[in-house]
């Protein structure tokens, strides 16, 4: 088999602000300042990793993309949603250090986080309000995609992944609501599980699956906890990766109010 010879594409240029200025004549001469040494050490470490992984090509492919004319603030809603998710993941991990998902201790541990743990009220507040922010951002991002027509060919798969992410975000909201285990979260979960149960034929099995049995029992809370902090976050992170890959691969769309510019030689002759 003859070996395929692929043309080697030039790397995209770095923006002017990121290219280092060339050294002035007479500068350094073998004796750098400590700052130079530190800078060089950083470059050496990055270069060592890059030589063995070739990660910089992928990072450049991901970050230095061409974006269409007319790109505006609406295009930041997706990133905003992702950062809301990252904030939820981070605060969630730290809440899990104090939280105890047992029916007899859950409320007490949530109370401890809010009233006694250092910065506990702040971290819990971040997680609570951040969840609402994330749901709002998901819907704004979805509306942007819909009204800009960015779901059309070839981006349908990215829309589908986005819908799955929306559903998973709702699952996170539902399972997270039970965890403080106060009166509001207990009864809201009873009502939510019973709404699932009203689906014909499969409903009764679905609600039993959520409760781990016919009654709200000893393992319902730990089941919600495991779904909330293990299963769904993993799925969301993986799907965000796929979502971002497709965005980088397919590029973004121009806003619908911009007409495509046609080169004069391809323009049809006006009769």
């Amino acid at each position, binding site marked *: *088999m003859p070996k395929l010879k692929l043309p080697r594409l030039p790397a995209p240029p770095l923006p002017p602000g990121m290219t280092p200025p060339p050294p002035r004549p007479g500068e350094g001469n073998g004796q750098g300042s400590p700052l130079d040494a530190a800078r060089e050490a950083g470059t050496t470490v990055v270069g060592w990793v890059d030589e063995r992984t070739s990660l910089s090509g992928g990072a450049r492919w991901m970050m230095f993309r061409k974006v269409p004319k007319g790109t505006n603030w609406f295009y930041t809603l997706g990133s905003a949603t992702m950062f809301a998710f990252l904030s939820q993941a981070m605060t969630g991990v730290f809440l899990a250090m104090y939280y105890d998902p047992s*029916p*007899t201790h859950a409320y007490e541990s949530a109370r401890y986080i809010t009233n006694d743990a250092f910065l506990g009220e702040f971290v819990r507040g971040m997680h609570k309000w951040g969840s609402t922010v994330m749901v709002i951002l998901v819907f704004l991002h979805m509306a942007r995609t819909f009204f800009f027509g960015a779901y059309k060919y070839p981006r349908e798969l990215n829309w589908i992944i986005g819908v799955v992410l929306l559903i998973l975000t709702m699952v996170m909201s539902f399972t997270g609501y039970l965890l403080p*285990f106060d009166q509001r979260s*207990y*009864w809201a979960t*009873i*009502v939510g*599980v*019973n*709404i699932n*149960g*009203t689906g*014909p*034929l499969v*409903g*009764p*099995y679905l*609600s*039993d*699956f959520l409760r*781990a*049995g*016919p*009654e*709200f*029992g*000893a*393992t319902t809370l730990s089941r919600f906890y495991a779904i909330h902090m293990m299963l769904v976050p993993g799925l969301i992170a993986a799907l965000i990766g796929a979502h971002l890959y497709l965005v980088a691969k397919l590029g973004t769309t121009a806003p619908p109010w911009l007409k495509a510019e046609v080169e004069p030689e391809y323009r049809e002759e006006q009769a």
Partner: protein
Amino acid sequence: MPKDPRQTKSKYTADRGMPGAFEGETVTRRRFMTGVTHGAGAVAAGAFALPAIGFAIGPIFEKHNVQWQDIGATDEFPTDTYVPKTITIVEGIGEAGRSTVYVRARGPQDTDKPDQYNKFIAISTRCMHLGCPVAYRQAAQRFICPCHGGVYDFQGVVTGGPPVRPLDRFYTQVRGKRVWLGPRFSVNRELRRFSPRDPGEALDGVGQYLYPSRPSVRKLPGT
């Protein structure tokens, strides 16, 4: 080597120009190796996926033995109003496992078929819309749900709001001079007994077929 390797019918991969072919390897051998690799992968994935799924859905099919519990003396309960009693539905989880049940003695107004299990009427506080706790109001002789406005009459039959069937009941039995409370059952509009269903699942007409009961939790046989 022939011009188009795909045209040849030789059994050797080298003759067909397959990538990675080596001297003496046959197409059958390659297919066999591919199949074995995929099969081993499927067995390995199944080895952790199937137990995990079974572990997660197992509780649906678990049988639960309901303990009968003593809820009071027979002369505590009048026929014209309800007495609230606290019962344990799930053991070992504290307040979350307890519930309130409204109990009264059977009176002349009761229309369901009398037998040994309904000499005392025990009405569940679980609203049959979506499961909020209903409260009994003696002045109106109604059960009223605070969540979405469900209203039930003295027998627990829906008179207003979104609930789809009358309030669930519990089996009761008189043992000596004490009233004992047993498992939960659901009723339809005629107060006929059914195996317990979740709230929001209708039992009249086609409802009992749309919402199948659990194989693991049944009403008492012959009632």
